C-alpha cells in the first residue's frame, strides 16, 4: 500500500478534530483576554500558580505590615504630642522653681507658686493619662488602665511593651511608660516626686528648704526635663524607623505586585496577537474543511 487510501470518514473526522483543536485554543485565549489572567486554573502552569500563591501571601503580608506600621506611627505621634506637653509642663515648673527659689520672695508668694506647681503635677498626670483610640498611651500593655488615678502618684500601668510588627520577626516597641518618666509613688527622683518635693520645699520655708530650692531641686528638675527629652528623642527615633519601614514596605509591595502581575496576568499584546492568529487558522480550517468535505466524484458524474 504505497499510497494510503483516504476515505470519506477520515477526512471528516480529521477536519472535525482539527477544528475542535483550534476552537479549544481560541477558547483558552478568549478566557485569558476576558479575565486578564494567564493563570485561571492550577493546571495551566502548576509551578507558576504555586509561585503566585506565595506572592499573594507575601503581598498580603506586606500590606499588613504597612497597616501595623501606620498604627505604630499614630501611636508614636500621639505619644510625642503628649511628651511635648509634659516637657512644657516641666519647663514651666523650672521657671516657677527659679522664681520661688528667689530669696526675696515672701512666704505668701512662695505658696502661690507652690499652688501652681501642684496644678502642674495634676496636669502632668492628666497628660500621662492620654489615650489613643481609647487606649492609654503610657500604661504599658495595661491599655485599659489610666497610669495615675486621681489623688495618687502610684503608677497603675504595667511594665509591658506595646509592640508592632513591621516585618517578619521585626517587632518595634512603640510605647514609653509613665513610670519611667514621671515615676511611681515618690522618692524615685522622677518628675512627679521632684515636683512634689519642690512644692513641699516652697511651702516649708526653713533654711534647709530654701537651700534645696536653690540647689538640688533645680538639678533634679533639669534631670526630669532630660528624661523627657530623652523619651521624646526615643519616640522620634521609633517614628523615623516606622516611617522608613513604611517606605521600604511600600517598595517591597510594589516589587512583589509587579512580580505577581508578571506571573499571573496575561500579556495583552501577545494574547491579542495569538487570538488573531488562531482566528485566522480557524477560518482557514473551516474553509478547507468546507471545501474538502463537500466535494466528491459525485459532483462530476452525470
Amino acid at each position: 500500500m504505497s499510497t494510503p487510501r483516504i476515505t470519506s470518514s477520515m477526512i471528516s473526522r480529521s477536519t472535525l478534530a482539527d477544528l475542535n483543536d483550534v476552537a479549544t485554543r481560541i477558547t483558552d485565549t478568549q478566557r485569558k483576554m476576558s479575565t486578564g489572567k494567564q493563570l485561571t486554573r492550577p493546571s495551566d502552569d502548576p509551578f507558576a500558580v504555586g509561585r503566585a500563591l506565595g506572592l499573594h501571601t507575601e503581598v498580603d503580608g506586606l500590606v499588613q505590615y504597612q497597616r501595623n506600621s501606620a498604627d505604630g506611627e499614630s501611636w508614636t505621634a500621639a505619644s510625642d504630642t503628649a511628651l511635648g506637653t509634659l516637657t512644657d509642663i516641666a519647663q514651666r515648673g523650672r521657671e516657677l522653681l527659679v522664681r520661688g527659689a528667689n530669696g526675696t520672695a515672701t512666704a505668701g508668694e512662695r505658696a502661690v507658686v507652690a499652688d501652681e506647681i501642684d496644678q502642674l503635677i495634676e496636669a502632668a498626670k492628666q497628660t500621662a493619662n492620654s489615650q489613643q483610640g481609647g487606649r492609654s498611651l503610657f500604661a504599658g500593655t495595661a491599655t485599659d488602665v489610666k497610669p495615675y488615678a486621681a489623688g495618687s502618684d502610684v503608677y497603675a500601668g504595667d511594665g509591658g511593651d506595646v509592640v508592632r510588627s513591621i516585618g517578619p520577626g521585626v517587632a518595634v516597641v512603640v510605647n514609653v511608660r509613665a513610670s519611667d518618666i514621671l515615676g511611681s509613688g515618690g522618692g524615685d527622683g522622677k518628675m512627679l516626686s521632684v515636683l512634689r518635693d519642690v512644692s513641699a520645699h516652697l511651702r516649708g520655708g526653713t533654711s534647709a528648704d530654701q537651700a534645696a530650692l536653690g540647689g538640688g531641686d533645680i538639678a533634679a528638675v533639669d534631670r526630669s526635663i532630660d528624661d523627657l527629652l530623652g523619651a521624646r528623642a526615643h519616640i522620634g527615633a521609633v517614628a523615623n524607623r516606622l516611617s522608613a519601614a513604611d517606605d521600604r514596605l511600600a517598595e517591597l509591595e510594589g516589587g512583589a505586585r509587579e512580580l505577581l502581575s508578571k506571573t499571573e496576568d496575561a500579556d495583552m499584546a501577545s494574547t491579542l496577537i495569538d487570538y488573531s492568529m488562531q482566528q485566522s487558522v480557524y477560518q482557514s480550517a473551516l474553509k478547507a474543511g468546507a471545501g474538502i468535505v463537500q466535494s466528491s466524484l459525485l459532483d462530476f458524474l452525470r
Partner: protein
Amino acid sequence: MGLHTSLRGLLAEQRALDVTSHNVANANTQGYSRQEAQLQATDALALPTGGQLGTGIDVTAYKRIRDSFLDLQYRAQSMQVGAGTTRADGLSQAELRLAEPGDNGIAARLSSFWSSWADLANAPDSGAAKQALIENARTLASSVNALDSGLAGVSTQSADELTAITATGGELQQIGKELAGLNGAIRDTERVGGQPNDLLDRRDVLLDRLSQLAQVSVADNGAGSIRVTVGGAGAPLVDGSALTWPPPAMTSPGGKLGALMDLSSPTGTIASYRGDLANFAQALTTQVNAVYNPAAGVDFLAYNAGTATLTVNPAVTAANVRAGGGAAGDNSAALALSELRGRSGGPDDLYSRLVTRIGTEVADARRGEQNATALSESIEDRRQSTAGVSLDEEMTNLIRFQRGYQAAARAMTTTDTLLDTLINRTGRVGL
C-alpha cells in the same frame, strides 16, 4: 452457451453493484468495513478438439476488508484514551473545587485569617477586631470543609459511575450479552457457509467499546466464535455464546473502569488529595493552637480527623478570644499568630504544595489524555484507510460495474442477433 456466459456476467456485475451500493449506504456507519465481491472465472469447458472455452464469471465470496492487527493496536490505545479521559475529567473536577487562583480559594481565606490576627495585635482590646477574627476563622474553616466534601463528592461521583457501568443491566453486561449473542449468530451463519460480514463488524464495534472501559483480550475459539477476557480477569467474560455474570474479578482493569476505581478508591488519587488537605488542616490547627494556647487551656481551632472537619472551638467567642496573656494591651499571641503567615513549612506552604500537586497531576492527566487520543486517532486513520469506505472509489466502481453490465448485455444482444440470424433468416429460401 454464449447466452449463459453473458448471463453470468450480468449477474456478477449486478452482485458487484449490490456490494458497491451496500458500501455507499454504509459509508458513515460506525465500525463498518468495506466489502468487495470477489469475482472469479468459472470453470472452463474443455473442448474435445483441445483448448478450453471460458464459461463466464461467478462471485466466489463477499470479502470484508479489515486488518485485525490494527484492531488490536486500536483497542490497546482506546483503553488508554478511556483511562486518560476519565482520569483527566475526575482530577479537573477536583481542581475546580480548589477555586485557585482566586479570591474565594483557601489561600485568600488563610491570608485574611492571618491579617485578622495582625489587626487584633494592633488593637488587642477591640471587640470589632475580635469579631472579625472569629468570622474570618469560621470562613476559613468552612472553606476547608467545603473543599474536603467537594473532593469527597468527586470520589462518590466516580464510584456511582463505576457502579452504573458494572452493575447488572449496566454497560458492561449489555456489551457482554450482545457479544455472546453475536458469537452465536456468527457461528451459526458460518456453519452453513455464510459470511456474516456485518455481524463481524458489529462485534468489532462492541469490542472497541469494551476496550474503552477496560483492558480487553480476545482469543479465537474457532468456528467464528471468540473468548473475551476483561481487565486481566482469570476467567473470560464472554466465552462463545456464554456470558459469565457477575463478571470475573478484574486484576488490572485499565481503561475507564481502572481510572474510576482509582478516583473512587480510599487509597486513590482523590483520597490522597483529601489526605494532604487533612494534613494541612491538622498542621494549621496544631500550629495555631500551639501559639494561641501554649498551656493546653482553651484551643482556638479544632480538627476532627474522623469526620475531616475543621472548626473554630465553640468555646472561643468574640467576648473571650485573647490577643495575649493578661493585660488588655498584650498582643503577644496575636502577634506571634500573625507571624505564621507564609512561614516555610507552615500552613500556607502546605496548602500551596497541595495546589501545585493537583495542578501538576491534572496537567499530566490532560497531556496523557491528549497523547492517547492523538495516537488512537492516528491508528483509527490507518484502520479507516484500510476498512473505510471511499466514496470516490465506490463511484469509480459503480461506473466500472455499470459498464461491465452494459458490455455483458451487449454481448448477450450480439449472441441474440446471431441466433436471430440463424433461426429466423436461415432456410427461408422461397418463403
